[in-house]
């Protein structure tokens, strides 16, 4: 079925308009290369990483840049992902701008250190080339790895295409290092669909990129010497980070992290605006992206590259007069509940697409939280869950079309037979 998309025509127009703003070159990059190129331009001090499919190209490219002397970066080859995250935490603690990348089992091995990093308020940025978890072994793309880390205290942003991957890396450093946040940020790119697919990516001139990320700022902390000093390991101003905090203080530190997440809801929007003014590329408001949603009766909410497929289907349906729309959830942590309520509160039926399972959880993670957010809207729509694409199984436009047909049926009959459904699963 041929799909004609005004989404892409819009994109072509934007590319032409671009030339009048900052001069940007177009490079052929896959998602992984886009990450590496952005990191190269972001003036990163330390990279500690361990390769894993489908993230390998990121680490390969970065080590190449370091070996060629193209960057002023310390590259640490660690013996595992647990060590990689430990090294990143230590580097970030000295005030260095720090980056790593991982996926799947590698991210799972980092699990313990993810909490230590966010708890130490270390603004590490990590690209995650989202991949399925074993067993059975599978190297392809789904969101099982990152969704399993949703309570690790990391900000999570998922990109739709290689261009957004590139753009999000710069934003990630600014978000992570913002004085009101000081939390690590994970940028998700769908394994293979984004990580290994060549796309045209507009890249910023080096000086503009460097100017945008600027120098890492440090908050001031009160130390045991009674001094207010920048938060970094420095022999001149010794301090203890992340020591033991028991019944009388642990709780207070966790509440601080929650406050930083709340602040991130505002800061992500501000930084995305600032970046948009520079490049004329905006991804919704940075938290969610509305696509033909204002008058939509039936809507899909999804995360990541699937949104591209959904947009073409929305265009097709709109051409036929169906009031279909899409809400792409770009930022999953912090969860933009208010924006979701605003965007979907007027729809009549919503399908939430989860590319991971929460076994025994009565639906996927994105579904849980979306439904939870919509509970407060006065006329909340019917909300159904579609689990799809596990282990990288392809999801076609015709399958998305059938989701919208299901939603139309729900609107007509006012009945939901099955709340949790599977796309492309053999029964």
């Amino acid at each position: 079925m041929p799909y004609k998309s005004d989404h892409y025509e819009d994109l072509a127009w934007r590319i032409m308009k671009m030339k009048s703003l900052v001069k940007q070159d177009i490079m052929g990059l896959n998602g992984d290369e886009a990450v590496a190129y952005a990191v190269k331009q972001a003036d990163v001090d330390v990279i500690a990483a361990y390769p894993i499919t489908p993230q390998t190209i990121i680490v390969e490219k970065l080590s190449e840049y370091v070996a060629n002397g193209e960057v002023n970066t310390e590259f640490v080859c660690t013996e595992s992902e647990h060590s990689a995250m430990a090294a990143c935490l230590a580097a970030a603690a000295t005030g260095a701008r720090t980056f790593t990348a991982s996926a799947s089992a590698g991210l799972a091995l980092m699990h313990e250190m993810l909490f230590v990093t966010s708890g130490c308020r270390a603004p590490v940025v990590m690209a995650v080339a989202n991949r399925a978890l074993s067993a059975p072994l599978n190297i392809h793309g789904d969101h099982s790895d990152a969704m399993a880390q949703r309570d690790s205290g990391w900000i999570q942003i998922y990109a739709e295409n290689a261009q957004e991957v590139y753009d999000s890396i710069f934003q990630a450093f600014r978000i992570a290092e913002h004085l009101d946040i000081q939390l690590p940020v994970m940028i998700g790119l769908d394994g293979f669909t984004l990580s290994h697919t060549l796309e045209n990516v507009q890249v910023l001139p080096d000086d503009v990129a460097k100017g945008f990320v600027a120098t890492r700022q440090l908050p001031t902390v009160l130390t045991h010497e009674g001094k207010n000093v920048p938060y970094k390991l420095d022999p001149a101003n010794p301090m203890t980070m992340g020591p033991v905090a028991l019944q009388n203080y642990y709780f207070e530190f966790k509440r601080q992290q929650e406050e930083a997440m709340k602040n991130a809801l505002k800061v992500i929007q501000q930084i995305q605006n600032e970046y948009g003014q520079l490049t004329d590329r905006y991804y919704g408001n940075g938290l969610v992206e509305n696509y033909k949603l204002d008058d939509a009766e039936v809507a899909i909410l999804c995360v990541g590259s699937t949104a591209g497929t959904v947009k073409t289907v929305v265009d097709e349906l709109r051409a036929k007069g169906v009031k279909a729309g899409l809400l792409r959830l770009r930022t999953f942590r912090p969860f933009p509940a208010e924006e979701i309520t605003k965007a979907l509160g007027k729809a009549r039926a919503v399908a939430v697409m989860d590319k991971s399972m929460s076994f025994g959880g009565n639906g996927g993670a994105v579904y849980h939280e979306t439904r939870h957010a919509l509970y407060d809207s006065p006329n909340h729509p019917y909300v159904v869950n579609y689990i799809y694409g596990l282990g990288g199984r392809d999801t076609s436009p015709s399958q998305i079309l059938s989701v919208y047909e299901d939603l139309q049926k729900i609107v007509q009959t006012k009945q939901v037979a099955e709340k949790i459904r599977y796309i492309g699963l053999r029964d």
Partner: protein
Amino acid sequence: MSSKEKSWKEISPAGVCWKSSKTYLTGDWKTYYPVRDMEKCTKCLLCTIYCPDGAILWKPEKGDIEFDLSFCKGCGICANECPTKAITMKI
């Protein structure tokens, strides 16, 4: 918790200590405390090395050791290691 404790809005982030650990007297964790038999003690100072809390101090002005009970957790390693069995642990 006690009202003397700071709120989450007042404390430094990431558990950065705003007080030295010297003000946190871990000695009150102990059940047993060390007692020395001066006749058996040869001042070999092995106990000062073995003490995991650095709570046995060599005082050069006295020419003798001193137990710092503010930080002695009462583990009894000193009593166990003492070659002349000069240290015993008492409740």
